[in-house]
């Protein structure tokens, strides 16, 4: 799932990418950066899996809800 500016960049709030098994958040970002508009994504955006922040190098669970979060601006 993509939000706010990132959704604008890729033209959608939901995208599907094929990833190898045992892929990490970095693999996902690299795949997204190949998509049209994806080159403007930052190299290390905030990634959430099932509503919790993904740590660097953490594997993505198959079927999990993965979200890329632009810099927060609430409050």
């Amino acid at each position, binding site marked *: 799932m993509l*939000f706010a*500016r990132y959704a604008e960049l890729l033209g959608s709030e939901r995208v599907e990418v094929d990833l190898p098994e045992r892929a990490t958040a970095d693999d996902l970002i690299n795949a997204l950066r190949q998509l049209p508009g994806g080159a403007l994504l930052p190299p290390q955006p905030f990634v*959430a899996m099932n509503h919790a922040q993904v740590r660097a190098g953490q594997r993505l669970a198959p079927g999990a809800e993965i*979200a890329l979060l*632009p810099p*927060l*601006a*609430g*409050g």
Partner: protein
Amino acid sequence: MPRLSHSPLDLEALVEAIAQPSQGAVATFAGLVRDHHAGRAVTRLAYSAYEPMAEAACEAIIAEAQQRFGVRADLRHRLGDVPIGEAAVVIVAAAAHRAEAFDAVRWMIDEVKSRVPIWKRERYADGTEAWVDPTVPDGIVAARQSP
């Protein structure tokens, strides 16, 4: 109870719901939509959220504040279009003594800004729009003519 709302926020109702006869100190914070940002005149503003994660983050902040400061606490964040001058966020904490109430509210607004997945899009008097990004020097991603 949802902490995110598409309707105007009611600070008074939040204060009344939180106050108890045993807790005499009630501190609040309201963040209102300002008419300017990054040197530009703002004409309207819309908040969006990753709603289930944002709700969970608000719940966690409230629970942690209550635990850390021994207060009763609550907060609401507005989503969607918010007119200038209306509240984007309201926070309240009630305690037996005022120091805890102030500390809790201050901590909560900092936490809301740093951990709740909410984004803000501003429209300016010159017709351009931009995403607010507190991590960049200007505070916004370059304003562009809106579609």
